[in-house]
C-alpha cells in the first residue's frame, strides 16, 4: 500500500472510530440509572434532593430514606464535591427536572477547595452542562481542548465507569453504603492525633450562599446538616462548634448538627464516614428529628 494512503487511512480510521465510539458511549451514558445520567435526562421528580461530598452521600442515602420515611429522596452528591460544583449541579437539576420542595446540603463541603480532578471527573456531562464545562475549562483548558480533539477522551473518567457499571447491573446508585469498620488500632491511632481545626474555604462558603439564594429563588427550602464524625476524632477537633456557627452566620441557615449523633464506633468506616450500620442508624435519627418534613 502507498505510504501516504496508509497514513491517510490511519487518520480517517482514527477519527471515525473516535467519533463513532464517542457517540455510542454517550448513548450508554444517558441510559444508565446513575444519578447524573438521570439528572441530565430529566428523570428525577423527588420531593427532597440531598447533596454534599462523600459524607453527604453516605449520610443521606436516597433509597434508605425513601424506604424508611416514605418521602421521595434523590441524592446527587459525589465524593469531594465542593459548593462551587454543587451550585452548578443543583442549577442543572432545576433546569432539567421539576424543583424539589427541600434541598439538604451536607455542610462539611465548605472545607475543601474545588480541584481540577473533581471537575474533570464530570467531563462526560460537559456536553449537557454549560456550567460544569465552563468550570472545567477554567481549571484545565488543556483538557477542554483534548475533549474537542477526542470524543472518546470525554468518557475517560471514573464517573463514566460508574455509570457504565450501574447500567450493566441495571440498578440505581441511590444506595451507596460503606462496608468498612474502624478497628481498635485505628481508633487508638486517632486518639493519638494532634488537635486540629476545621478550616472554611471562603470562596466555597460564598458558593454555598449563592446556592442557597438560587434555591430560594426557585422556591426550594434549604436545610444544612453536619453529619456524624467518629467520636474519637471529634474529640481531637478543637473548633467544631465555632465552625458550625460560622457557617450558620454566613449563610443565614442553622446547621443541624449530627456530628455526635452516632456514638458507637463500630458504625463508622473511618474518621469521617459512617458505614452501612451507621447509615441505617442515622436515617432513623434524622427522621425522628423531622429533617425531611
Amino acid at each position, binding site marked *: 500500500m502507498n505510504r501516504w494512503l496508509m497514513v491517510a487511512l490511519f487518520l480517517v480510521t*482514527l477519527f471515525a472510530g473516535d467519533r463513532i465510539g464517542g457517540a455510542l458511549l454517550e448513548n450508554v451514558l444517558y441510559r444508565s440509572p446513575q444519578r447524573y445520567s438521570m439528572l441530565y435526562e430529566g428523570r428525577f421528580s423527588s420531593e427532597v434532593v440531598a447533596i454534599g461530598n462523600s459524607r453527604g452521600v453516605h449520610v443521606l442515602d436516597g433509597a434508605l430514606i425513601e424506604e424508611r420515611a416514605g418521602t421521595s429522596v434523590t441524592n446527587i452528591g459525589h465524593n469531594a464535591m465542593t459548593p462551587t460544583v454543587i451550585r452548578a449541579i443543583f442549577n442543572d437539576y432545576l433546569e432539567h427536572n421539576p424543583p424539589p420542595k427541600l434541598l439538604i446540603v451536607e455542610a462539611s463541603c465548605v472545607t475543601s477547595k474545588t480541584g481540577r480532578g473533581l471537575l474533570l471527573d464530570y467531563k462526560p456531562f460537559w456536553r449537557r452542562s454549560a456550567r460544569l464545562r465552563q468550570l472545567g475549562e477554567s481549571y484545565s483548558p488543556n483538557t477542554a481542548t483534548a475533549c474537542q480533539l477526542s470524543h*472518546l477522551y470525554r468518557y*475517560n473518567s471514573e464517573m463514566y465507569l460508574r455509570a457504565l457499571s450501574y447500567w450493566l447491573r441495571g440498578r440505581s446508585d441511590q444506595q451507596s453504603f460503606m462496608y468498612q469498620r474502624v478497628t481498635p488500632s485505628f481508633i487508638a491511632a486517632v486518639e493519638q492525633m494532634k488537635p486540629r481545626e476545621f478550616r472554611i474555604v471562603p470562596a466555597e462558603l460564598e458558593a454555598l450562599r449563592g446556592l442557597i439564594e438560587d434555591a430560594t429563588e426557585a422556591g426550594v427550602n434549604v436545610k444544612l446538616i453536619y453529619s456524624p464524625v467518629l467520636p474519637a476524632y471529634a474529640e481531637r477537633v478543637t473548633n467544631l462548634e465555632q465552625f458550625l456557627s460560622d457557617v450558620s452566620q454566613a449563610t443565614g441557615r442553622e446547621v443541624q448538627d449530627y456530628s455526635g449523633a452516632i456514638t458507637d464506633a463500630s458504625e463508622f468506616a473511618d474518621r469521617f464516614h459512617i458505614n452501612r450500620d451507621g447509615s441505617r442508624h442515622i436515617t432513623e435519627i434524622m427522621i425522628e428529628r423531622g429533617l425531611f418534613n
Partner: protein
Amino acid sequence: MTFNSLTFLIFLGIFLACYFATRGNVRLWVCLIGSYVFYGWWDYRFLSLIVISTLIDYTVGLLLGRTDNPTTRKLQLTISLCSNLGLLGFFKYFNFFIESFHHVAQTLGLGGSVSTLNIILPVGISFYTFQTMSYGIDVYRRQIPVEQSLLRFATFVAFFPQLVAGPIVRASDFIPQLYTDHPFEWDRALSGTGLVLAGYFKKVVVADGIALVVDRVFAEPSAHTSLGLMVGVVLYAFQIYCDFSGYSDIAIGLARVMGFDFPENFRTPYVARSFSEFWQRWHISLSSWLRDYLYIPLGGSRLGTFMTYRNLLLTMLLGGLWHGADWKFVIWGGLHGLYLVLQRLLGDGWQRLRKAVHLPDLMNDWLQMGLVFFLTCVAWISFRANTLADACDIFARIASFDDLSLMTIRNRILVAKSIFVIALLLVAEAVHRRKPLNLWLLRSPVFCVVSFAVILWLIALFGVFGSNQFIYFQF
C-alpha cells in the same frame, strides 16, 4: 521530562526532524545535545555527573588502550570502577549506610547521634553508571576496542531514550551502531512506532490506572482485609511490570525509529516456569549485566555447590540493593536469591515427583507458572511496601487469611477497570508469543492501521494523564 508528558512529545518532534536532517558528526551532536536537554530538563545541575562519568571512562578507555602492562591496566580499571561506584555510592547509598551503621551502633548500645546529608538522587544514575562501568571492564578484558571519539562515547553514555531507566545497553552493542548514519526506513518506523504505542499503553493505561488502586492499598495496609491486600499485591505485580517494560518498549521503539537496535528488556516474565527463566525474562539487561560482571567473576557455578549458592545469593542481594538504598530492596533481592537456590535444591525432586504422579506437561507448566508468579508476588510486597514494618504487616495480614471480603477496597470500579486492561494486555501478549506482532505490522497495512488506531482509542479512553513518573526513575 518524562516520556508521558506533552513536553516530551514536542521535544521528540523537534529532535527527530533535526536527527533525520543531519549526517555524520553533526547527527551525533544532535543526539548528544538532545540527550543533555532531555536530562537537564529534570535538573541541569546533575548533567555534570554524566559529563564527569563520561570523561573518566573515556580517558580510562584511552589509557587502557595504550598499555599492555597488567598492573597499570588493573590500576586504571580500579580508578574507573572506584569513581563510578563512588558517585553511585555517594548519591544513592551514603545516607543509607550512615543510618544503618547508626542503627547497629544503637543496638550494640554504642548510641551517639547521626547526621545525614540532604542528597538528591540523580535520575538514572544507576543505569548510566552501570553502562559506563561495563565499557571500562570490556575494554580491560579486550572484548571491545577503545572508542577514540569523545563525541561518540558521550552519545553512547547519554543517549536519551534509555538514559534514565534503561535498558542498560552495552558498549559492544551500541557504539558500533553509532558509526553508521541510519537513513529513515519506513518499516523500522512502523515497527518502532508500534513498540512505542505498546509502551504508552502499558504505562498510561495499565500501570498508571492500576496505581490508583495500589497506592491506596499500600498507603493504608491496616485498613484492608486479607483479600483486599492480595488484590493490591497482584495488581502491583502488573503495575511494576507494565510501568517498567512500558518504558523499555518506548525506549527500544524510539531507538528503532532512529535506526538503532536495542536488546529486548522484558519477555513476558510472568509466564516463567522457574526463577532462572524469570530472570531471563525480567529486566534482561540488568540480569545479564549482573551475570557477566558479578556472578561469573565471583565464580558462577564453577566452584562447587556451596559456592554457587553463595554466588547466587550475593548477586541477587546486590541486585536488590541496586534498586534502592533500603533494606526492603535487599530483602526483595535476598528472596529472589533464595528462590534460585531452592529451585536448584528442589528441582530434581520436583521432576521425580512429577513423573511418579504422571502429571501432564500442560498442568505441570501451569503449576510451575502459578508458583513462580505467587512467590514473585510475595517478594513484591517488600519491594513496594512503604516501610519494612508495613511489609511485615502485609505479610501477616495476608497469611492470616481471615477476611475474604473486597469491601474495604474503595474504588472497586477501578479494580474492575484494572482487571479489564490487564486482560487486554495478556491477550495481546499471548498472541505476540505465538507470532510477533511487529511481523503482522509489516505484512499487513490494514492490521497496522487498525492496531495503531485501537491502541490510541484505548489510551484516550482509559489513559491516566498526569505525567506520572516511571517507577524505575527512583532507581
